């Protein structure tokens, strides 16, 4: 039956394709005209063909994913109401951002036993509070997302000190073996301007500090939190490359894991102008997360259009085999392999240098991220990197201002820190202050 489609026409090789392009170029240079160099040191070719097919064996991912809404707890009552409202709309996971301990009974009123996954992020590490929370939610699926190394990188300090922080984690793991206690906050590096290779490599090296301390089996209790940027196919490949590499690293610990990935849109490329642009960017980033194989995709701002798009996407992809979408795709498979190769080299260098914590203390990781961020910022400032309605294509009648962003990076902190903290920074931040 299948030659019904092929009996009238001849197939062509990639060489024939290239020749055709060169003919159409009419003397112009192929490399200069058609190849796109990215900040990752990867070249996007004008076409990909089965002749040059290359892939790595990315582990399959389950078909279903969770749609999640992130909710900041300002008061337990309002957070509870928002949670009830988004569940009504169709999300099946919630992430609560808590800066301080909260009242369980109020926050979780009418939220329990509904097959909702609960994710948290805490601004502090209180072992007793978390023990109580785990006990209270013992019949629910929990992701606590405690990342003491991530907190160290972000704030420059341990919650308490190195030993106490690790001891708290150890205690929590012992008493709550079913809960997902730890996380690796890779999103911090993305939001601070690290490129995709760095993000994948740092995620591995960061995780390996936990493996080194607690053993490889702790991988089953770690969630990986990624921020998704705007380079659509690269972001799909980023998640796939990480899922492959984490299992490669875990071979050293004689274990494997179905890597739970929590993905949310980045803030790095978001602007406070143009509501529709914001929604479009976030929504295509959801899609990268979904196709890349994330377990949970979160709408990390209170924005109804983004939420509706996420819910629509969940419905749209519910009947599809996610692994089948990317499997065999010339472009994504090639990107996945290239990202994995490059990230593995960086990971090995970090390990050779004494590991991620050591390089954080030396300031090397911060310096590397800063180099990448500066390069990207320069591209933005000169217009080589475009954000529509921000640095380019601005319309005069767009006066709407979006208020989704933390103002932390503009306020100066005078706390003494052990290491230089890694700060998230939006590309358009400075431009918008003018």
């Amino acid at each position, binding site marked *: 039956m299948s030659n019904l489609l092929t009996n009238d026409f001849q197939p062509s090789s990639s060489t*024939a394709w290239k020749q055709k392009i060169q003919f159409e170029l009419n003397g112009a240079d192929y490399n200069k005209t058609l190849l796109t160099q990215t900040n990752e040191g990867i070249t996007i070719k004008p076409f990909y063909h089965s002749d040059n097919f290359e892939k790595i064996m990315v582990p399959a991912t389950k078909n279903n994913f969770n749609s999640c809404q992130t909710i900041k707890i300002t008061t337990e009552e309002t957070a509870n109401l928002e949670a009830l409202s988004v569940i009504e709309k169709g999300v099946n996971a919630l992430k609560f951002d808590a800066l301080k301990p909260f009242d369980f009974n109020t926050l979780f009123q009418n939220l329990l036993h509904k097959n909702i996954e609960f994710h948290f992020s805490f601004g502090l590490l209180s072992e007793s509070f978390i023990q109580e929370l785990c006990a209270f939610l013992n019949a629910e699926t929990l992701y606590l997302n405690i990342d003491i190394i991530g907190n160290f990188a972000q704030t420059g300090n341990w919650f308490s000190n190195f030993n106490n922080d690790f001891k708290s984690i150890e205690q929590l793991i012992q008493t709550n073996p079913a809960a997902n206690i730890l996380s690796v906050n890779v999103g911090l590096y993305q939001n601070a301007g690290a490129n995709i290779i760095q993000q994948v490599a740092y995620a591995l090296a960061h995780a390996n500090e936990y493996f080194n301390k607690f053993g490889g089996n702790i991988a089953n209790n770690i969630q990986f939190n990624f921020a998704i940027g705007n380079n659509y*196919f690269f972001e799909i490949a980023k998640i796939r490359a990480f899922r492959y590499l984490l299992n*490669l690293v875990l071979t050293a610990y004689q274990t494997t894991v179905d890597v739970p990935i929590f993905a949310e849109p980045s803030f790095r490329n978001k602007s406070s102008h143009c509501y529709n*642009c914001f929604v479009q960017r976030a929504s*295509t980033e959801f899609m990268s997360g979904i196709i890349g194989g994330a377990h949970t995709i979160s709408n990390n701002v209170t924005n109804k259009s983004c939420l509706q798009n996420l819910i629509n996407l969940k419905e749209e992809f519910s009947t599809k085999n996610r692994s089948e979408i990317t499997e065999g795709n*010339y472009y*994504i498979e090639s990107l996945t392999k290239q990202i994995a190769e490059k990230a593995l080299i960086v990971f090995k260098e970090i390990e050779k240098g004494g590991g991620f914590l050591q390089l954080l203390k030396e300031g090397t990781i911060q310096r590397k991220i800063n180099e990448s961020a500066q390069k990207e910022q320069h591209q933005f400032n000169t217009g080589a990197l475009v954000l529509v309605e921000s640095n380019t294509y601005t319309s005069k009648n767009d006066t709407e201002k979006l208020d989704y962003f933390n103002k932390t990076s503009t306020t100066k902190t005078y706390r003494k820190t052990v290491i230089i903290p890694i700060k998230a920074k939006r590309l358009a931040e400075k431009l918008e202050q003018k």
Partner: protein
Amino acid sequence: MKRKDFSDLSIQAQHEKISYFEHEDFIAGVPPYTRGLNATTVLKKQLTIQLLVNFSSPVKSNTFIKENTDYKSIILEINTLPTINSGIYISSIEDMKLLLNELPLHKLSITLSTKNSILIVLGLFIAASKQLGFKEETLNLSVNYNYKNALINSNFYFNTIETILTYSTKNLPKFKTLSISAIQPNLKSSIENELAFFLAETYENLNNCILHGVLVDAVASKISFNYNISGDHLLEISKMRAARLLWAKMIHLLKPKQQYSFALQIHSTENFSNYHKVFSAILGGAQRIISNKNTFLIFENETHITKTIDPWAGSTFIEKTTEEISIKAWTLFEKILSKGGFSQITAQENLKIEKVKDNSFQLIIEAAKNNATIEELNSIVF
């Protein structure tokens, strides 16, 4: 714990595909164009974004076009019946002249769209532009067509497409495309129905053109597929790939000599306010859609998705779906042919099949110039 040594860790690359489909090795830029009309996305501008104009007042629509000079391609949704409340209401050549007043018609790419008789709308447009001082040979014109445009009082004028193709071949050298939608109310809405009926309808009209002495190469490339896009992103990408493959296969039956006859352009007249459909249109390789500019600009400038051609190629899901859609639609197309073709099938839907007379369209243009009413114009054809 002693730190593990990762220095020997290495990546095992593979070069074998798990799934392989025979049509995967067709490339872009040559028939059957499954992977796209152009060999790269970089050398030729891939997608045109159109401005939809549909204020019921011709004067207001005219002002709107003048306010949006950054759009070089516009679509005029025209309504010739006072009872319908959508589209620019045009009751005579005078209304059409108000709509086109002081517009640089020779510089704009204009698409005409209507739910009424397309011959009358096109006739009024040509007559008005002539009276405004534009010669036919300068008009950069496209026309949208669906079955309603050939349907009056339960009579189906089967040769409407042929009439437009024949006229434009002789008189409108810069005529761009007749964009055909084959969605019919009596048909179950499915991808294979949409594609098979599109193929059957265009096949019949092209055959008639050939019978009347027009070369297939003179008309085939003037037809484009006006597609109906659903919310399923990956399915739509597969459908557009299948549509190009099937068109090339259908055209092959008519033995054209020119390669460009095998290339199917894909358009949509839906208003893509949603990012999601624009996304499908770009990755499926469409040529013309209606959208707001920012939506396309973000995709083009921020996401890198236009840096490589047909980026979804090779994907098991996409290739499998492309193949399934193609086989189902082609099988149905052959079934329609075996039952006597498009008009015969349409006749079974309780429609009377009628023919637009040979010189009717010229008569419409002449009558329009003399300020004929819509009713008077109708009586010429029908």
